[in-house]
């Protein structure tokens, strides 16, 4: 282990080893594994990708554990590392196509929701649920996650950064290398499609069941 070598080997320039407030790494997987996994699973497409992100996070945390100041909790610190890893994967999804192609794609999808004069093809149903009840329904989250995964990867990525991570426009645009207009079009498309998917898979079925 490299840090051990440094402590034992370099006597004349012996670094002050600040034993950070970090807990024993051998307990990390049991303590934080499932939480980090669920966090990643909300934001990436599949289990395998989420597992890899969690593993990378643990290894990065291991390397960086001396710099952990203890100002935040260990878990918050690890979530911070995981967030960076997730943004890296988001960035990759934007490199697959040029921005103008992405923009055209998104605009075409938006157009498909309306007729020639700009009336919606399908009118929203009148669902005004109790948000509290909704947010605590496991089924609602499963459907919402399912709807999110039906968006193109990059659309879901930009939407997640905005809505789940609460990053502002400037930060997202910088990370993804897009303009604010690009981002607004992407977010608008995501909202149209998610709302429609949620209505079809949750609210219409709920009404049918009653």
């Amino acid at each position, binding site marked *: 282990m490299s840090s051990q070598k440094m402590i034992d080997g370099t006597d004349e320039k012996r670094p002050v080893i600040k034993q950070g407030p970090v807990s024993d790494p051998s307990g990390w997987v049991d303590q934080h594994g*499932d939480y980090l996994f669920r966090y990643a699973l909300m934001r990436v497409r599949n289990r395998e990708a989420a597992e890899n992100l969690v*593993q990378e996070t643990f290894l990065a945390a291991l390397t960086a554990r001396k710099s952990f100041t203890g100002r935040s909790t260990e878990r918050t610190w690890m979530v911070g590392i995981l967030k960076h890893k997730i943004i890296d994967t988001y960035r990759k999804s934007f490199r697959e196509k040029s921005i103008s192609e992405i923009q055209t794609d998104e605009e075409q999808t938006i157009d498909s929701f309306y007729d020639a004069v700009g009336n919606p093809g399908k009118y*929203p*149903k009148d669902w005004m649920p109790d948000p509290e009840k909704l947010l605590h329904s496991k089924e*609602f989250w499963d459907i919402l996650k399912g709807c999110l995964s039906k968006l193109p990867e990059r659309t879901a990525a930009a939407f997640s950064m905005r809505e*789940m991570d609460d990053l502002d426009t400037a930060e997202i645009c910088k990370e993804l290398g897009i303009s604010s207009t690009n981002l607004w079009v992407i977010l*608008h498309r995501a909202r149209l499609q998610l709302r429609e998917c949620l209505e079809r898979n949750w609210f219409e079925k709920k009404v049918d069941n009653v």
Partner: protein
Amino acid sequence: MSNWEEETKGPLVTSCKQAARLISIAMERRLTLRENLTMHLHLWKCRTCTLYRHQIRLLRQAFTRHEEVLDRTPPADCECLNSLTKQRMKDALIKNQ
């Protein structure tokens, strides 16, 4: 309909398509006075877009609070790492220490 045609209708009369775009943009930045007036005039006469606005705001509320929900609800089995994966991660941590 082309943008040009839409513009000829004047700034304050707008389609649901255009209104929905403004509703979404309003969640990202301050609308200009004209945009804001256009949006509200449309909302005033259009129940469809009022519903739409309510629903996409609910979406934002849900996603904003997902972490709180993540903290509170016990994970389902399918949302946990399986024991094999956990062991693989533990091994990797020990190997790299």
